[in-house]
């Protein structure tokens, strides 16, 4: 009667790793530059798709989060690309957050083209992913209506997730609805903001915006143990504060 150890050695000799648990290598991440967020999510995972979801018309902090991430990565001398479906990226605002603009490729989709801005954005992102060499490729669909986002087939997200899997690039998508579902390694919901004003409300000229607190919630993560209903917030100050 052979012992378990002998059977195990015989099986492993023929099929290596058959009886051992696969250890997934620890995923590398980019720091977002927002300590409160990095503590919760660890960072934006490389070689994976991250979706940041927020309603289009409210101040949710999604652009602040993306610009802060771009500042971190470009200052680390890596190139980034922003595919801007609604042409809403502000270079002046990004420069104020110390994004190195010379390492930021900006693709401004056009509403006058024969293709819809969403289609243009995905085609451009496809070309960028194929080219390689970017630390972050961000697709900004933040101003696109949820109905249009829902029309994007799941296979598109699956394909993007599979392509970036073999590259050191982090694909970050800003949109109104978590359309990528399980294709995303990290889903982040950013929602309510809480603005603070200084000065007196009586005279509008003496009142200025001092800071804004943004709430966020982790919807899905593969990098860390999922944290259920983890509500957290981060603060951003305007340039003049």
């Amino acid at each position, binding site marked *: 009667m052979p012992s378990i150890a002998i059977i195990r050695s015989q099986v492993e000799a023929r099929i290596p790793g058959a009886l051992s648990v696969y250890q997934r290598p620890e995923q590398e991440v980019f720091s977002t*530059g927002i300590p409160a967020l990095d503590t919760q999510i660890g960072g934006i995972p490389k070689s994976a798709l991250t979706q940041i979801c927020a*309603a289009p*018309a*409210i*101040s*949710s902090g*999604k*652009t*602040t989060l*993306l610009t*802060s991430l771009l500042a971190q990565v470009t*200052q680390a*001398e*890596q*190139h980034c690309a922003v595919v801007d479906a609604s*042409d*809403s990226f*502000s*270079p*002046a*605002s990004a420069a*104020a*957050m*110390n994004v*190195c*603009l*010379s*390492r*930021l*490729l*900006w*693709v*401004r*989709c*056009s509403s*006058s*083209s024969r293709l819809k801005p969403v289609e243009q954005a995905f*085609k*451009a992102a496809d*070309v*960028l992913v194929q*080219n*390689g*060499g*970017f*630390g972050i490729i961000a697709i900004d669909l*933040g*101003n696109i209506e949820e109905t249009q986002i829902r029309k994007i087939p799941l296979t598109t997200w699956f394909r993007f997730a599979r392509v970036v899997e073999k590259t050191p690039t982090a694909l970050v998508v800003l949109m109104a609805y978590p359309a990528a579902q399980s294709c995303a390694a990290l889903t982040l919901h950013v*929602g309510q*903001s*809480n603005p603070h*004003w200084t000065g007196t409300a009586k*005279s*509008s000229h003496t009142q*200025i*915006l001092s800071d804004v607190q943004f709430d966020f919630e982790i919807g899905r993560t593969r990098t860390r143990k999922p944290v259920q209903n983890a509500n957290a917030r981060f603060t*951003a*100050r*305007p*340039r003049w504060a």
Partner: protein
Amino acid sequence: MLFGCIYVPDFPVQAALRLESKAQPVALFDGPDSLLKIVASNKPARRAGVSIGMTKLQAEACGVSLRKRVQEHEDSAQIALLDCAYTFSPRLESTVPGTLVTNLTGTERLLGMGETVGLKMAALCRSTGFEVNIGIAANPDTAICAARGFAGITIIAPGEEGKRLGSLPIRVLEPASEIMDVLDAWGIRTFKHLAVLPSVALTERLGQYGLHLQRLAQGAIERELVPAELPTAFQERTELEETVELLEPLAFILNRLLEQLMDRLVDRSLATDHIELVLSLEVHPDHDVKAATPAASTTALHERTIKLPVPTQDAKVLLRLLQLDLAAHPPAAPVKAITITAIPARLRLTQTGLFQPLSPEPALLEITMARIRAVVGEQDTAGRSRVGFPTVLDSHRPDCFHVAAQGIQPKTTSQPSSCLALRLFRPALPARVELSAEQAPVWMAFQRRKARVVDASGPWRGGGSWWDATGDWLRDEWDVHINVDGAPGLYRIFRDLRTGQWFVEGMYD
């Protein structure tokens, strides 16, 4: 002294067949349309029965490929040969089309002796698209005669010129036809026969020219090379027998021309970051049959320029960029002739490091940007590029930026700072704003939304370019807090003081 001669047999045909198979029987015709005659042919064509002076119709009966002789092909081929020879020695002579002589004195330690250097020369010429004969001798004319008379690589040691050249036929010297007839009548067929004739008697009968031919046959002429000037322009041109309408066949021709250009640049250790393409188009104007005006076609030009952020020697990258550019800006009529000019630039060599951060390959990035431009368009209504690296311009005007094909490296690096980002609406959204008695916004409506202003900060006045009637701007900015669907929205709105209209510029997000 040591001289090397590069001789291209059937030069006009080889110039026409550069980068094509030389095994095919080809003959070139030229002359007035009423009397087209064969002016050059290669060995397979001669074997098929084609001879110089035949009419085009006679040559067609031999079943060989017939092409029109194009002077531009021969000019560019001669320049390519010059570039090849220049890699061996800067002292060179362009004797006649298809024949070059280089002074190899002093290059023995660098390039090798005798046959070694000959093999290198032949290999380089072969890679450029020429099958050549090489002659190496102690004087230029002996090297020329050896290259013209013997196939392959011929090396003639000093003092053996007369002996080695003796077996060559007189026609290698290419004497004038009347002299050739006289020598033929005397029974002088080879160099050896001519070399042994008494010099004085020969001079009395054929003059100084006869004596010169004899000294050439003896290999005894010592002379200096006439220095050739290397062309500074890198240009390739071809005229097409049939006009090309589609971009795909055009790409094949562009590929050939670009490869030729890049070969020349590589020979000179140069690269290019600027390509100019000129397509000559065949334009047929409307023809009025009733007026019986003669049918005339005018040629228009279609010019395109490609600029790269870094110099490249890669013909495939340039071809892809030209293809994308021509797909976006196709010529309006069939293409009749193509001219490509490369502006030379020094090759930028950079040492890549193991720990260097991730960055896209510059040449590939240029192709990527061109492909994206084909999707999103080239420029917006303000003339700013839709793809590229943004730069904030030194101006107080809001949203004033430029998008360049290449990022300008900052002089200093700074730490990233986390502050509130602004998300813009381009163009700014028109809005209706109700003001309080203190002239502060209390209600605003835009994009089918109406909301009460919870908090407001302003007005912050800005203006500029008042000296410019078309570019002046003057406005009052407000930061407002409204509730959209129950959630706070922080917007930047402004009032254009010239028109009194309100706009939503962006959202703090």
